[in-house]
Structure formats: structure tokens, C-alpha cells
């Protein structure tokens, strides 16, 4: 019995110390990791969909509370007006969640651009949602209140052939963005007014 207790205590001790160390390292690196993901994965997508903006959306960003979580909102400036925002949403693809950055114009409530950030879709098939710009270009200019669906589901978006589920995932993410946008629009406008510069 005492032997058993000793074994048990040894393992508990080891895992507890390990947990403590990992929590500390995670805390210390979290901010930098977020920054790196921004720079190497989300950054290029944001720059692409906000093409032609006169500011740097990566530095003009803020966090906004949404229910229990927080969302990163990136602001784009066009013709001297900060009227465009971009943020990331997720839809379910075939291999896992698909991250989609959606840019929306606050004045017209229309989609400015859509770009895929992270995904785990099949290379060569589902991955074309990211590599074929013609697919995501279809969303451009659509009113945010429109239902975003592929044609097979009665919508307007041409799915990539052989990648219907992945295409559906992107539509799902854009749909989610539209919900979030309509829910948070007022708060976002307020926050942008508060941004300095």
C-alpha cells in the first residue's frame, strides 16, 4: 500500500511541476506567437483583401468583446476614411476548421474581400479554396445580408468542383462573419472613433 502511494505521488509530482513550467512558458510566449501568426499567416491574407488601403491594418487593430470571447478587428482606411474592417471567422471544412478573413465596408454593408488563412483541406482538392483566387473573388461586392451558399444549396456561389465540402466551409465562415458583423456593428463603429490618429 505504501509502495503504491509512493508511485502515485511521484507521478503526480512530476506532472504538476511539468504543468507549472508549461503554463509559465506559454504565458511568456503567447503574445509573440500571436504576433508571428499575424505576420506570417493572417497578415498576408489581410493585406490582400484590403488591397489599396492607405494605412497598415496590422497595426490599426483592436479587440472587441463578443459573448465570452474576444475578436481581433483590423481596420482599413480608404480615401482618408476608416470605413472598412476585417476579422477572422471559422467554418467547418472536410479536414477541420477553415479560417477565413472577411473584409466588410461599414458604409455600404458589402463584402470587400474574402481570404482563406488556415485550413487542413486535402492538398490539390480542397486546398484550392486558398490557391484559386477566382473562388474567393465571387464574394466581393455581395451585400452582407445575402445568404452565402454554394449553388448546390440554392445560393449564388460557384463551388470548386471536387471540393464542395471545402467550398461550403468557406461559405459557412462568411455566414458567421455576417452574423458577427450585424451583432457588433454599432460597437465596432464606436471603437473606430476611439482609435487614435
Amino acid at each position: 500500500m505504501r509502495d503504491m502511494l509512493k508511485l502515485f505521488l511521484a507521478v503526480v509530482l512530476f506532472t504538476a511541476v511539468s504543468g507549472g513550467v508549461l503554463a509559465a512558458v506559454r504565458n511568456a510566449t503567447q503574445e509573440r506567437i500571436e504576433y508571428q501568426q499575424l505576420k506570417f499567416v493572417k497578415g498576408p491574407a489581410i493585406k490582400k483583401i484590403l488591397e489599396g488601403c492607405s494605412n497598415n491594418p496590422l497595426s490599426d487593430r483592436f479587440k472587441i468583446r463578443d459573448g465570452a470571447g474576444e475578436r481581433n478587428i483590423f481596420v482599413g482606411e480608404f480615401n482618408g476614411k476608416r470605413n472598412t474592417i476585417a476579422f477572422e471567422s471559422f467554418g467547418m471544412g472536410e479536414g477541420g476548421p477553415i479560417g477565413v478573413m472577411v473584409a466588410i465596408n461599414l458604409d455600404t454593408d458589402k463584402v470587400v474581400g474574402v481570404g482563406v488563412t488556415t485550413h487542413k483541406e486535402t492538398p490539390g482538392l480542397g486546398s484550392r479554396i486558398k490557391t484559386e483566387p477566382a473562388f474567393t473573388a465571387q464574394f466581393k461586392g455581395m451585400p452582407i445580408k445575402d445568404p452565402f451558399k454554394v449553388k448546390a444549396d440554392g445560393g449564388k456561389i460557384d463551388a470548386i468542383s471536387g471540393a464542395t465540402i471545402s467550398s461550403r466551409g468557406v461559405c459557412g465562415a462568411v455566414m458567421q462573419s455576417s452574423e458577427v458583423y450585424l451583432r457588433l456593428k454599432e460597437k465596432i463603429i464606436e471603437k473606430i472613433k476611439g482609435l487614435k490618429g
Partner: protein
Amino acid sequence: MAKSVVQEFTKGLWAEIPPFRLVLGLCPTLAVTKGVENGIGMGVALTFVLVCSNVVISLVRKIIPNKVRIACFIVVIATFVTVVELVMQAFAYPLFLKLGIFIPLIVVNCIVLGRAEAFAAKNGVVASFADGLGIGIGYTLALTTLAIIREVFGNGTFYNIPVFGPSFKPFAFMVQAPGAFVCLGLMLCIMNILGKK
């Protein structure tokens, strides 16, 4: 203990160089040696884990009950691997994207657990440190050698810098999976011939 600390260190560089002499840890060896940058990155990551886990295990070897020693070793190793993963994400994100799954897989790398069980659990801290460092550097050298051969011939570059003129036609076989096996086989063959003398 007949061997000196220096001998413990140098044995990892030649007599017991992991992939060529111990023939351990081959999975990442074959997979990541497509480029010199990946090879060095993987080697450094493994060296860090090996040195840290060797030292810690050697320090606590007297308090670990024999029956749960493997579980405790794995906890120690997994902790350091996660630390490496987080730090790499924070400071070398592009490298992290390239090495991908092979970083977390260091946990189950035979070299690390092998050194813990065969050496650190029976020897003092200084000797274990020397052993870990030697084996780690040996592993890095081996990966780098393989990576140089494969990258130079398979891609015509060294550390992403072109080495041959534009007229060079890359020998693509070398950067594909079969090329890795052939390369490793030739290296083993050379090592054996040299070792016979």
C-alpha cells in the same frame, strides 16, 4: 565509470553518432533533411531536449520509483518538447511551419528516451550533460550532412542560396522520399567502410 567527461561527449560525435551508428531516430532524419535549414533546426531542437531531459532525469534519478520511471521520463521529455515548440513558434515561425509535426514527435524519438533510460538514469549530472550534448551535436551533424547532400543535388541550393549556375538541372529524386533512403544507405555504407580500419 571508466570514461571521462570528454569521452562521454566525443563518443556521440563519431563512435555512437545516432542515425549512422545507433541507427535510431530515422523517421525525422529521413523526413526533414530536404533542406539544410530544416536539418539544423531539427538538430538544435533535439539537442536542447536531449540535454535538458538528460540533466533533469539524472538529477532526480534517485527519487523516481523504478516501476514508474518510464512514465516520469516521458513527462520530463514531453515538457521540454512543448517548451521547444512554443519557443519555436514565438521566434522562428516559418521554421515551425516547415518542421510541423516532427517537433511534437520528438517526444517519442527513440534517441531521447534511449539516452534517458540507458545513460541519464544511471550516471551523474555532468556525465549526462556531456552525453546529451555529444549525442545531440552528433545528430545535428548527421542531419546537416544528409541535408547538404540532398539540398545541393536535389535543389541546386545551399541554405536556399543557389550554388550552381542557372544551367543546373536539379536532381529532384534526391529531395523526394526514395532519395532520402538511398542517401542514408550510402552514408551508412561509408561510415562502415571508414570504421573498419
